């Protein structure tokens, strides 16, 4: 038996969420008294792979196939299923990001494995195997039993602490028997936004709503984000109006994020918006309306005009960072 963790790479590099997955998998393997095996698909240097060992991986399988140039759900799922069977995986762990969401359900059918999607902590018990996950868009939690011999879990980003160990992993290469000719999907074009911090990866997010009154007022908000090393986000009305790019929309039908710190500036805090940010560790709200629902979700708040307050916050952060 083993716990098999699939880690995705971005141009041959891992991210914090990759290490969160390994830390989680290592702890889960401890609970189940079994070993943790990490699977990486694609071309990743040994230097990079070794980082996974630091977070608890005992064995790393690096499945190399330079033929893979398009993320195809069927292909990736097939490869992971093959290793899951070979390694007699009792639990397969993936991220609950776009890639994990594409793979996990298909894998569930191939392996006849019950799926616990979007977990944020270790299972409540292992026999019966009970996981804890958010439901009703964050308004409740569910204790869910997975009845099958093999289980699949997808882990929510930024929900599990990194645990560093003295571990050194054994890295083995594997060649996958998969050919690009079997993938019929063709990439026509790739559009990349350069430079900006990815909203779903950011530890700090500064977000603006209709209370900002006009796109012309965004300057100090962007400045605050820059000084904090934060990503910028917005509420749905703001993206619908075209004041900010669609990629910034956080909320139930936009991006669901879980940063360490979320600034909700001129955002009233409608249910659909809160559904996107309720897992944030800290929420700060700035709003002229003292009864705005956002204040029930926030730990810190200022009742006042964001346009007047933002420049003062920028000054305070500049001083703080200057020290």
């Amino acid at each position, binding site marked *: 038996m083993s716990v098999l963790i699939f880690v995705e790479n971005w141009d041959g590099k891992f991210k914090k969420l990759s290490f969160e997955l390994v830390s989680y998998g290592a702890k889960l393997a401890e609970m189940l008294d079994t070993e943790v095996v990490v699977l990486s698909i694609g071309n990743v240097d040994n230097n990079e792979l070794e980082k996974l060992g630091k977070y608890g991986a005992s064995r790393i399988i690096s499945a190399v196939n330079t033929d893979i140039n398009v993320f195809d759900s069927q292909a990736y799922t097939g490869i992971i299923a093959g290793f899951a069977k070979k390694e007699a995986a009792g639990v397969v762990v993936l991220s609950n990001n776009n890639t994990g*969401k594409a793979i*996990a359900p298909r894998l569930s059918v191939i392996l006849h494995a019950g799926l616990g999607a979007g977990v944020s902590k270790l299972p409540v018990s292992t026999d019966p195997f009970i996981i804890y996950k958010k439901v*009703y868009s964050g308004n409740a939690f569910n204790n869910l039993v997975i*009845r099958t011999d093999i289980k699949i879990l997808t882990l929510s980003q930024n929900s599990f602490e990194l645990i560093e160990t003295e571990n050194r992993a054994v890295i083995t290469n594997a060649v996958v028997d998969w050919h690009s000719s079997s993938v019929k999907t063709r990439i026509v074009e790739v559009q990349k936004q350069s430079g900006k911090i990815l909203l779903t990866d950011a530890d700090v997010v500064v977000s603006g709503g209709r209370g900002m009154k006009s796109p012309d007022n965004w300057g100090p908000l962007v400045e605050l984000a820059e000084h904090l090393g934060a990503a910028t986000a917005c509420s749905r009305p703001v993206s619908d109006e075209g004041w900010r790019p669609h990629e910034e929309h956080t909320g139930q039908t936009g991006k669901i994020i879980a940063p360490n710190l979320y600034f909700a500036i001129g955002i009233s805090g409608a249910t659909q918006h809160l559904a996107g940010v309720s897992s944030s560790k*800290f929420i700060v709200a700035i709003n002229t309306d003292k009864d705005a629902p956002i204040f029930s979700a926030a730990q*810190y708040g200022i009742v006042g005009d964001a346009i007047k307050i933002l420049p003062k916050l920028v000054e305070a952060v500049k001083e703080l960072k200057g020290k």
Partner: protein
Amino acid sequence: MKILVCISNVPDTTTKVKFIDDFKKMDVTGVQWIINPWDELSLTRALELKDNPATGIRSVTVVHVGLVGSEPTIRKALAIGADDAIRINTVPADAYFVAAQLANVLKSESYDLILCGIESSDFNGSSVGGMLAEFLELPSVSSVSGVNVENGQVIMTREIDGGKEILNVPTPVVAIVQKGITKEPRIAAMRGIMMARTKPLKVVEPIAVEALTDSVNYELPKPRAACKFIDCENPRQLIELLQNEAKII
């Protein structure tokens, strides 16, 4: 080309979530039921594509797994413009169960494009679309934020970290759809509501399938500590608190 949209029936997003039976079941008294928001966006896009004669789309069918109590929601989908509907008559036990039921009905049909919302607002499982594709052994594309049909080709936009991919996909295919697929969900007009009453709604019986997961009970979130207010004349104090008290910056 024929499009199929899978729809689930969920409580309206502003519902105050409460539980009964020792936290084993949701209290559904007074709940307004709606088409799952992502499924509604999928359906709207399917209808937009059908409205364009150049796409060659002949019909848009909706399918749902649920009991007769879901029929008002299914009629809403017909009122918005779907041509016909199928209801598989059973309680949706878990995602695997639902996908297996859908696959059983769909395996003998020939839909070119199957649209599923990426998740449902009640269970947030992000599962049914991918599971259905695997049961039917069809390719699937997830995180789809755009679907177009040009010259008989299906072109999809897939969201990736920090960007988008434009893909040309073969049919039949399952698209697992998120925001961006269309601007606003379509609203039913009076004529649509009247026509919905007579559009075909076929009811089929389920097959025997075992769910892979089972709910034990639910919990409500622990109440958060009350918000600490900072004087708007002294916003710098906020930064100090974030650094010294929350230790988050």
